[in-house]
């Protein structure tokens, strides 16, 4: 099938970017979206043009590298799917797809569709952990965790750190990402001692990195490939209110 693409091209942060038209003729419906871009890139290279830069690694929807906004939707149209797992059979012959990078001040542009998401790492460094040194902690079964909490913690822990929540959020808020980590650790007994410090640290870092406020649009949940629920954001707020109510 034939697919028309309008792809954001930008040399670096300093240079202006624009949408450039490409047409890919021999698209196979079994191709993944990224394979179609590979295909396009091979053609561009053979024609002596510069290929389109985009980020990717596992191509299995787990590493969180891929980050494309397709026709205005982060990761494209399919629910619960990172764009590397989107296949061309979802499109029809002759479709036009606008391809843009994640856009947010906190995710500066690197080139074309590649951006820098290290702000997420810095939010994690601000408290997204349990402070145990490597050594000889108690036996793993010393603290039972009821299955309900363990499962809930897992639901939140499933975040792949892709940043689609920020990309899709009209406010560019990182609340879903941050809330997911806070909620995961809040549901485990191991996370309890640092609960307050963690939420205060992470919430403050999130703002300082330049992410916007959350207006409860829940667009983040709609695009999240890991299906993280905005309940994570509600929990984060609860944790925060409790923490500031009690911290000295």
């Amino acid at each position, binding site marked *: 099938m034939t697919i028309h693409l309008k792809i954001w091209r930008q040399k670096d942060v300093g240079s202006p970017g624009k949408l450039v038209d490409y047409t890919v003729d021999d698209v196979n419906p079994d191709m993944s979206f990224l394979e179609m871009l590979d*295909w396009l890139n091979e053609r561009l290279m053979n024609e002596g043009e510069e290929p389109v830069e985009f*980020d990717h*690694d596992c191509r299995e929807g787990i*590493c969180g590298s891929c980050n494309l906004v397709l026709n205005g939707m982060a990761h494209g149209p399919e629910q619960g799917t990172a764009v590397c*797992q989107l296949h061309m059979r979802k499109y029809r012959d002759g479709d036009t797809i606008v391809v843009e990078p994640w856009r947010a001040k906190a995710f500066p542009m690197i080139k074309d569709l590649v951006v820098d998401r*290290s702000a997420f790492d810095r939010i994690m460094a601000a408290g997204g952990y349990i402070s145990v040194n*490597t050594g000889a*902690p108690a036996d793993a079964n010393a603290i039972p965790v009821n299955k309900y909490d363990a499962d809930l913690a897992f639901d939140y822990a499933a975040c792949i750190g892709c940043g689609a929540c920020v990309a899709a959020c009209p406010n560019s808020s990182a609340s879903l990402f941050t809330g997911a980590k806070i909620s995961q650790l809040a549901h485990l007994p191991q996370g309890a001692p640092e609960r307050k410090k963690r939420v205060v640290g992470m919430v403050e870092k999130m703002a300082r990195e330049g992410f916007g406020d959350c207006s409860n649009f829940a667009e983040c949940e709609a695009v999240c490939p890991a299906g993280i629920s905005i309940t994570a954001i509600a929990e984060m707020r609860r944790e925060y209110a409790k923490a500031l109510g009690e911290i000295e």
Partner: protein
Amino acid sequence: MTVINSEVLNSKVPEGDLKDKWENHKNNLRLVNPANKRKFTILIVGTGLAGASAAASLAELGYKVKVFCIQDSPRRAHSIAAQGGINAAKNYPNDGDSIWRLFHDTIKGGDYRSREANVFRLAQVSNNIIDQCVAQGVPFAREYGGLLDNRSFGGAQVSRTFYARGQTGQQLLLGAYSAMMRQVHAGRIEMLARREMLDLVKIEGKARGIIVRNLNNGELERYVGDAVLLCSGGYGNVYYLSTNAKNSNASAIWRCYKRGAQFANPSFTQIHPTCIPVSGKYQSKLTLMSESLRNDGRVWVSGKKNDDRHPNDIPEKERDYFLERRYPSFGNLVPRDVASRNAKYVCDEGRGASKTGLAVYLDFHDAIEADGIDTIKARYGNLFAMYEKITGENPYEVPMRIFPAVHFTMGGLWVDYNLSSTIPGLYVMGEANFADHGANRLGASALMQGLADGYFIIPNTLGDYLAENLHTQEVSTDHEAFDEVEKEAKERIHKLLNVQGRKTVLDFHRELGQLMWDNVGMSRNREGLEKAIRDIAQLREAFWKEVNIPGENNTYNKYLEYALRIADFMELGELMARDALEREESCGGHFREEYQSEDGEAVRDDEHFSHVAAWEYKGEDEAPVKHKEELNFEFVTPTQRSYK
């Protein structure tokens, strides 16, 4: 060919009873006092399970640590993709498991091509790993009583695999990553993402630094340290198509090989039987489907050649359930290498499924009939959904199509008991070393090994080396050794960019992959291996004449990154073929057609090949030299595997 029965390869395995070796060894290692730890800088390449856990643990001890990774975040290392689980000898289910049993299974699974002492230590620390991860908040699966759940994995007779849904690697890595980020926050770790190590800098014979390319702007950067830890993962991507992430590569270890680190058992590759088959030339990677599917699915192909009927139209009596037929007692649950090889054979006969003829059916029809669709849905719902997402076919109604794919490389840089390579100060961990898996890795053991290396082994053994080096001279990045190595790296990049040929990097990678898959794949023979050595050399030559690399060096340039890695794969591929050629036996993942029994089973040759083959680089136009580390089995007796 020169073979040296080597003194160079001193495995440094401590004396004593198997059970006491590690404890004794730890007691004898020299220590660095806390005040001095701060004076040492450790460079860690890679942030997978091995790298992240090592970085966190060493920083906690007080060392200054610098960590490098290719991805934009350390959390994206390939370990994130591991699905199944991690083994430990906790014996929580009380089904008779023990450290000894895990040790024995691992060494037997590796077809007696690994070091006893290392494997035993791995089994010993396996339990600490689980404790450590739980303390970090890793949400392992639990039972209703609140205790940890285990499952049986990869044909093991006991349930010793801990798991976190189908995302165990992700959860373990996030645990290690968060421990690492805690140290970043504390200022003890400097995290340098989107940096690719291009070469190793040796000063006075010791590893003292690395040259790194900043992938955002192409600049070469120099880092000096007191030790370099390679945790750069496996090299399965030499086959072009594999289950590895696209960025997985061999460059870090290959460059170190060329600087004098020996490369052990390069040809030992694991091919996983249940992956989603290739659908066309555009295919960029292969996706693993969990091995657990073989518990209920039945593997078959048509009895006829080139049968293009829809699988549901092929009547029962015309189907060949070849694994059940050939291995009546294990049936569909034979080990990975056996299942893979047999799938290849039926496809070679022209009986493969799919348009490409490169697939076999994995059929759940009988299981659904026997247990009901709900049970099957509960067991495999996620996997079936993933399969449908990728192929567009519904496995509840149409048999799945699967095919083997390259999955793991047991080979890697040679290391001693302390994880030190043959270059002093260069340590290798995780999949990058030749590891504890011998000729074949058991399911759920790679995660265990990566974390054992990083959390529990290197923090002990590194101090011993550093203590000895407390008074070595300080060097800075202005040292001429840095100038030299950086110059070489720069020249390589320019040389590549200046080729300006007509073929893309991917063309070459595909071609190399095909050569490797056909000749150094599941089933190998002398003729094919010799051909591979010749053809790869030609391909390499063509690469340096005809490759076309777009763009410039000073911006983000993915294809340039690839090209640099593929240049190294071109050399590594040849070494793999050479190693396979010289190992004249069949063991684990290495199957030589010349060495099989009458009914087609692998025949190991313990008399001549009970050793680790470690290759030493001798120069651009010279053949490498093979060193042997003899493997002595004091505590277990090697036996032949049989799954009939």
